């Protein structure tokens, strides 16, 4: 199907729209968006709509394209958005998993959606199921069949029941909130949080830089500490050595003093010993011998000679 570009305010060529989902080759997304930019509301026949819905329902890739288109581009282009919602309702009807409410009492939608989810529980998560769920919730929200809180609750419970990934949940929740004007405050908060997170991230990065700097400084200090510890050990060893040397010198000093005192005392003792015995005794004997009647000069001579000899020996 050949695409045909439309001027602003003109009817959009639906072939371009259909080819985006099921065409071979498919219409590029940018071309589709350009075609719908500023275009008038496009109506599509029910027959053509059902054919396209059937085709999308049979082709998982097309459903993904539909969900993506609703989430990303549908909100900024009301013309496209309305067409996508109409197509989504047709797809939901084709699946038949949840019936769309016909009356003003829309609470049956949420009940049916939960029952469907309950039936699906404990079954493996598939892309098809994920897209179908998101499609149901989005359509429900836009039609006012479910509140944003209910939608969020359904999505969160799905996490537990069917094992949707947190990323999928988060993405969907954001989308849910963005489609609900009452959730603008949340967006503001989210933006604030995002700003805070960014600021925190910046802080973290700054802190990481600081940590890296501190780690480098710590390593430097550690090296310094090791160096200082080594110096301290050296100083301690030198102090010990000096202390031992002091002890040794003190010991030597005491030993020298003891030696000096011993030599002095020994010298005195020897001198006193020699003078008192035998020299004094010999001299006394000599005097006695001279004074004895008759005088014993030979005795005095001998003792005095011995004394002289001994003194000479000592002097030598």
């Amino acid at each position, binding site marked *: 199907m050949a695409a045909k570009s439309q001027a602003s305010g003109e009817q959009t060529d639906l072939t371009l729209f259909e080819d985006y989902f099921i065409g071979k080759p498919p219409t590029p997304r940018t071309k589709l968006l350009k075609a719908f930019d500023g275009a008038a509301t496009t109506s599509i026949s029910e027959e053509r709509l059902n054919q396209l819905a059937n085709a999308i329902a049979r082709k998982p890739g097309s459903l993904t394209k539909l969900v993506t288109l609703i989430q990303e581009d549908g909100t900024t282009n009301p013309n496209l958005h309305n067409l996508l919602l109409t197509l989504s309702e047709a797809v939901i009807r084709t699946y038949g998993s949840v019936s769309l409410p016909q009356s003003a009492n829309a609470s049956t939608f949420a009940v049916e959606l939960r029952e469907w989810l309950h039936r699906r529980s404990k079954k493996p998560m598939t892309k098809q199921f994920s897209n179908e769920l998101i499609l149901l919730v989005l359509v429900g929200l836009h039609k006012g069949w479910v509140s944003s809180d209910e939608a969020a609750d359904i999505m969160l419970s799905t996490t537990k029941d069917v094992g949707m990934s947190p990323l999928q949940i988060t993405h969907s929740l954001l989308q849910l909130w963005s489609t609900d004007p009452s959730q603008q405050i949340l967006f503001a908060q989210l933006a604030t949080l995002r700003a805070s997170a960014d600021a925190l991230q910046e802080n973290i990065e700054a802190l990481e830089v600081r940590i890296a700097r501190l780690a480098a400084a710590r390593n430097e200090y550690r090296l310094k500490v090791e160096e200082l510890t080594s110096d301290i050990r050296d100083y301690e060893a030198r102090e010990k050595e000096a202390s031992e040397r002091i002890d040794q010198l003190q010991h030597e000093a*005491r*030993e020298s003093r003891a030696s000096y005192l*011993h*030599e002095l005392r020994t010298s005195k*003792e020897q001198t006193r010993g020699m003078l008192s015995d035998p020299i004094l005794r010999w001299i006394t004997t000599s005097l006695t011998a001279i004074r004895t009647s008759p005088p014993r000069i030979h005795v005095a001579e001998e003792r005095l000679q011995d004394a002289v000899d001994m003194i000479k020996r000592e002097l030598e």
Partner: protein
Amino acid sequence: MNDVFAIDFGTTNSIVSLVGRPTGSDDYLPRLYLQNGKPHPSVVSYSGSKPVVGQDALDQLRDLRLGVIGDIVRSPKMFLGGQQSIYLSGMTKTPVEVVRDVLSFLRVDALSYGGEDNSFSRAIITIPVTMDGRARAELREAARMAGITIHQFVHEPLSAIYGYLRQLPNYQKAMANLDRSPIVVFDWGGGTLDLTLCEMQDGVLTQILNSGTKDVGGDAFDKRLRQLALRKHSETGANADWVLLTPSSQARVLQECADAKIRLSSREATTLFVDDLVDSAGNHSTLDVRISRSEYEAQVQDLVTAGLHTLDNLLEQAGINPGILQWCIATGGMVGMPAIQRGLQNRFSVDQLPPIEKPADLIAQGAAWIAHDDVMLRLAKPLEVVVAPRYYATLIPKGEILPRGGSSNPRHFDMYCVDPSDGFAKFQFCRPTRPGREQAGDARTPYAIATLPVDPKARPLLERLHVNVDINENLLAKVSIYSKRSKLCCKVDIPDLEFGIDVAGGRGD
């Protein structure tokens, strides 16, 4: 081991010694703590209120006997391990108390020199080879009472050899060359002549055989000289009966004789002179006799001969030709006597008779070196038990390090009674008679015998006997044998273990 000093506790004299550095020298030398340049006589007098020790006590002596003379005890160590009491005039003392007084005096005198770090409270003490474990225990107790812990005993001759070795310029080389070479220590002092044949075996210097006599000590020479002097004096017509002399005269005559003996070593003749010998006036009251060296030597010839014969007998008994002797280390106050010098020179070559510097101090010097070098004692011969005729089991091996002050060396053995039929297990403890000759066929010398009642009906090798051998700090082996079967125990002491000094293990510097 700077805190350990040495005591040469001799029969006649005692000397405290300690190795130190002389002023201005890097070398160590033994310091001797002398009085008037002389050793302290081993004499205690109890005549006053306090005991008098040393030269002052000796000056009161009027007799040359060893032992108890009135209130005076000469050579108190001879009483250790023997009698319980020493009877003095008017009082009784135990040998331990008397020895305590001598050791306490020696310690106080050494402390009075001042300047030493040493508190003179731990000592190596020299003992005669013949002093047994019981006497050593009493000596230790006496020292303890005097404030001295005996770190180690050492035999006097081994101390003399170590002292001589330490005088040599290269003593370690000299020690290394001594292995299996016999050395005799010829210690002729004032009280006794002690001979000890020693040998270095595997670095341990040990005695092989010892001999000695109290009959030819220096005092005996003094007595002979006194007899000669009084006889010559009597020949002049005077009556100089010793017992009639006044106590003062007796003391002066003894002093004069001791002095003359020394003079006769360096001169050919001397005059003995003592005035107022007796109370009666006149020429006869003055002793004035001239005695030549030859007269003196003739008077003491038998003593010299007896002493030298003791040496000959020792070598003969040991089967050693004098020619193969490494050294004859002559120490003691008597070896300076020319007649004794000649006797030694006739037996040994110049190399075998090394000149000894201060021979009277050699034991004290050696003890100081042993303390300084931290030389240990080792068992000279294995302690064995006879297990069958000519078969011996070693209980304590030769070379075992012996305990020092405050320690012991217990050993435990299990043995079985070979023949209980007579109702007794018999233990004969012995050692090889000669060091190094320890084969089954070599001669053994018994230490002690112990018997323990056993069950005579038990079959051989059934009854287990626990044998405990504990060598204590006094080098006394206490053996106890216990039978678990009969619950009986017997004990025996071995007081005469033979030990040597570990010369090679000493810390020489």
